[in-house]
């Protein structure tokens, strides 16, 4: 490496040799200050009783937060339930979103009239953001006389939707989460499909392959990069997602996922209330639990991805 020579490239400027490094510094400093530093400091905070209220002393309490999370009767039962709910949320969202995104991409990859319109439509929620997504669905799922209620009513069914039993409210959040993000999955698949060489299909067609065989032997193996991206992004994204819970149902017992639990413990259960006891040390411990969950999921996903790649390489 001829570092000296490369620096010398821009030695003519007034800033001298150091120009690239000097100008690199602000961005890296910000990254370390706002992202990496706080992220790593989460470990340290998880061993304290920090409150987040200025002037209150912070004490080291060892593993107490983790012990409370895992082994303290009723409270930890709620916490552990939140962990399982997070896993369930992620499994449902990842698998359904992956499957629907693939189906939509396969359909829209054909030469159909109006495909641009449909693609634009399905991607639309992504740009609207959680606040608008959530409020739109609250209205759409109005229990008394709303559109979905009327459709259900026609079949003699009735539901309180987001105000119903926890499990039902939870299921509706899954629906909205998928509705909001399936467009991303679809577009990534579409980009992958458009990169597949047409002559592979031609060759297979000459051999008389039918639609399913074309998909199995050409599309699916050739789509590997898009499959990997979607798989990983969906898993990690859905484990960490919780903003729709905030908008759609608020912090209701029996519905919250880990991300929401971190927020509620750290910053109060009702938004904007400044007086509730903030338990930021405990919240930090809960974020470490979430981190471990994401880590395990990412490693498993990575293992599956590598195994799949190896199978198609042979």
């Amino acid at each position, binding site marked *: *490496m001829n*570092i000296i020579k490369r620096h010398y490239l821009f030695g003519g400027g007034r800033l001298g040799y150091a120009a690239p490094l000097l100008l690199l510094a602000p*961005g890296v400093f910000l990254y370390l200050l706002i992202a990496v530093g706080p992220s790593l400091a989460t470990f340290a905070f998880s061993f304290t009783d920090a409150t987040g209220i200025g002037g209150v002393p912070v004490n080291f309490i060892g593993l107490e937060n983790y012990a409370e999370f895992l082994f303290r009767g009723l409270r930890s039962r709620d916490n552990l339930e939140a962990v399982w709910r997070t896993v369930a949320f992620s499994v449902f969202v990842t698998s359904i979103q992956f499957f629907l995104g693939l189906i939509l991409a396969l359909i829209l990859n054909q030469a159909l009239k109006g495909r641009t319109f449909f693609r634009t439509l399905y991607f639309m929620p992504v740009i609207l953001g959680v606040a608008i997504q959530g*409020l739109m669905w609250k209205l759409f799922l109005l229990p008394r006389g709303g559109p979905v209620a009327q459709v259900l009513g026609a079949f003699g069914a009735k539901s309180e939707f987001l105000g119903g039993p926890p499990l039902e409210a939870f299921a509706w959040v899954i629906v909205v989460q998928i509705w909001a993000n399936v467009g991303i999955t679809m577009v990534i698949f579409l980009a992958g499909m458009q990169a597949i060489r047409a002559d592979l299909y031609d060759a297979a067609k000459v051999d008389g392959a039918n639609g399913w065989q074309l998909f199995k032997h050409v599309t699916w193996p050739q789509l590997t990069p898009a499959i990997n991206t979607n798989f990983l992004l969906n898993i990690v994204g859905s484990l960490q997602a919780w903003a729709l819970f*905030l908008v759609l149902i608020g912090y209701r017992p029996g519905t919250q996922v880990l991300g929401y639990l971190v927020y509620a413990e750290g910053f109060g259960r009702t938004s904007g209330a400044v007086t509730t006891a903030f338990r930021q040390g405990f919240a930090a411990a809960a974020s470490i639990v979430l981190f471990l969950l994401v880590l395990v999921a990412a490693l498993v996903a990575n293992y599956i991805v590598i195994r799949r790649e190896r199978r198609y390489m042979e």
Partner: protein
Amino acid sequence: MNVRTTLQRPPLAASAPSASRQALRTKIVSYLILGVFAIVYIGPLLMLVNTALKSLAEFYRDPIALPSSLMLDNFFEAWELANFPGYLMNSVFYVVAATGIFVLTSLFVAFPIARGYFKGSNVLLTLYLIALFLPAALIPQFQLILHLGLYNTQPGYILLFLVNPIGMIILVNYMKSIPRELDESAAMDGCSYPRFVFSIILPLIKPAVATVTVLHAIGVWNELILPTIYLTKDDFYPITRGLIVFAGVYGSNWPALAAAVLMLAIPMLVLYIILQRHIVSGLTSGSVKG
């Protein structure tokens, strides 16, 4: 590829007419599925428009009936009840400031990394790559802002958005495609480093900058959690927070709320249709949190 060898020959009976019937059937099924999904995507939007054009009384009588007359009062009501012009100004300010500073500082981080201009540039790149999997920075970040005295201030809020690892990675990857010879000839001509990055590299990486700008701007614009944590003063609320607070207060007045939601959704939808290509590529590369 061993497609040729693994596929079976079709039965000889497969003839032209049945193939075209097959194609027709595929087409019908395709449109059927697209149509069902279209209903699920247009439905909530239609319901929003329908509600926004009704009086409260009409809405309570039958939420899904069409409005008897086109009523725009809800829009004026929503506009007056909440400080929406103020919220909008705040959102625009946050987006412009945060995106501007982020893109500017990132250019100068991404370029040396892409070139491997310094020792440890690979380590730095890895640090950006693993950001997605690091623990949430939420709690220590709050403590940091609190101790810097920036809690409930606009600069403090903007500070939170000056970082975007995915945006950085997009820039680095794109810059790698710019030939190195450019560096050398520019340096030979006595071009200074900042001028080189601005006047030679920047025009060449415009598509990546557009993608990153859109990705970052939409992220800041749509952020809901951070203003809930960091901004308690109504004067500082961005539009998302303003909307949710409005929903909390006027939640039962759906016509006014729907009008408010619509007023914020329409500019986004228009921008989306105009800038679709950049927006889709930006959000897809940044599709991590939802």
